């Protein structure tokens, strides 16, 4: 039950951002699915007691794999699915928290949030790039194997 609940709302959040970012209409559902995939991975890792950063990293890898699949299948640039897909994971709320504490002069608390923002965003960025690199290496190797066979 809780899985369905989490899936539905992370799907809606990502698809909603798809509208906000004016994603192509036929990609909206896939944008939502990408976001749901990343979030559900993240959610289960967090529930299982994994560290926030590691969970964000793994979630980002999961959603990028999904995004690569969709971009190959629908022949669309991968950025469409990644931009909408990382929405549930990105530390937007924490970034807002940071600045709210800064303007309220609670600097110590703000620092804690600021580092959390940077680490989470870094983990997500690294996760996306890791998956993309792995895919590139895979493609290169597959291309070489094919050329040798011919």
């Amino acid at each position, binding site marked *: 039950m809780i899985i369905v*609940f989490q899936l539905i709302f992370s799907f809606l959040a990502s698809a909603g*951002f798809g509208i906000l970012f004016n994603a192509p209409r036929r990609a909206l559902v896939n944008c939502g699915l990408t976001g749901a995939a990343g*979030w559900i991975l993240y959610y289960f890792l967090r529930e299982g007691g994994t560290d926030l950063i590691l969970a964000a990293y793994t979630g980002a890898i999961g959603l990028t794999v999904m995004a690569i699949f969709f971009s190959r299948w629908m022949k669309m*640039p991968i950025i469409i699915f990644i931009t909408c897909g990382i*929405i549930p994971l990105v530390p937007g*709320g924490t970034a*807002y928290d940071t600045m709210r504490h800064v*303007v309220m002069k609670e600097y110590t608390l703000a620092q804690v949030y600021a580092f959390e923002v940077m680490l989470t965003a870094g983990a997500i960025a690294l996760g*996306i790039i890791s998956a993309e690199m792995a895919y590139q290496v895979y493609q290169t190797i597959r291309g070489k194997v094919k050329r040798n066979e011919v």
Partner: protein
Amino acid sequence: MSGELEAIDAPDRVLSDGFVRDVFYIALNCGKILLENGAETYRIEDTMARIADNYGIDNTQVFVTPTVIIFSMNDYALTQTVRIDERANNLEKIDSINNLSRRIAGGLPLRQAIDQLGTIHDTRIFPFWMVVLSGAIIGVSFLMLFEGVTVDIPAAVIAGAGGVFIMEGIQRYTKIKFFTEFFAAVFIAMAAILYAEYGPGQMLDTIVISSVMPLVPGVLITNAIREMIRGHLLAGVIKGAEAALTAIAIGAGVALVYMLL
């Protein structure tokens, strides 16, 4: 390439001057549209160089940051600099340019490519009410993901939709993003506080965080770091500064209301 010496070739006489200028026009404008609509800089550089390459013009240099494009065809002594003042996220246009570039790689004649570029410039966008509705959907979704209570849903709907409405609405009249974000944040905080103080609202902070989600620069921060890891340090720094400014605007807007009420 590092280690290799840059070649200065003589221009290819087979290609007429007009042809070269048309290729330049297409590559430059594809890059401009991509940058204005939120594509990553390394991908823009890649696309522009590849378009020129497909029409038989090599030895091009592209330098893209979030605020400027410098593009030169070295063999033809052609260079242009384009300033980009406004950036938004419009994934539909990125997709259209991607399609165009794919078709150019498949051998699309130059004339048709120029015609297609003209039609890309006015792609359809979602109607305004749908964009506002998406603000409400996002607000409610995050309220649920952040373990909010169902009593707070009406507040998330009003604050989320209102925030997007103000941001998109004011953006048509002013170009300074800082103020549109600030006023949207003020509205969201007011709606949330009024609902929590005089209504049945329970978790004020959760309402505010989920409703500001359409405004916060989470994607921007992540993209900034991605650019940096890819080696585009300047682009990363610029995007990071933009993200910090947005976060300050939203934080200040909410904090102002907290202090006043």
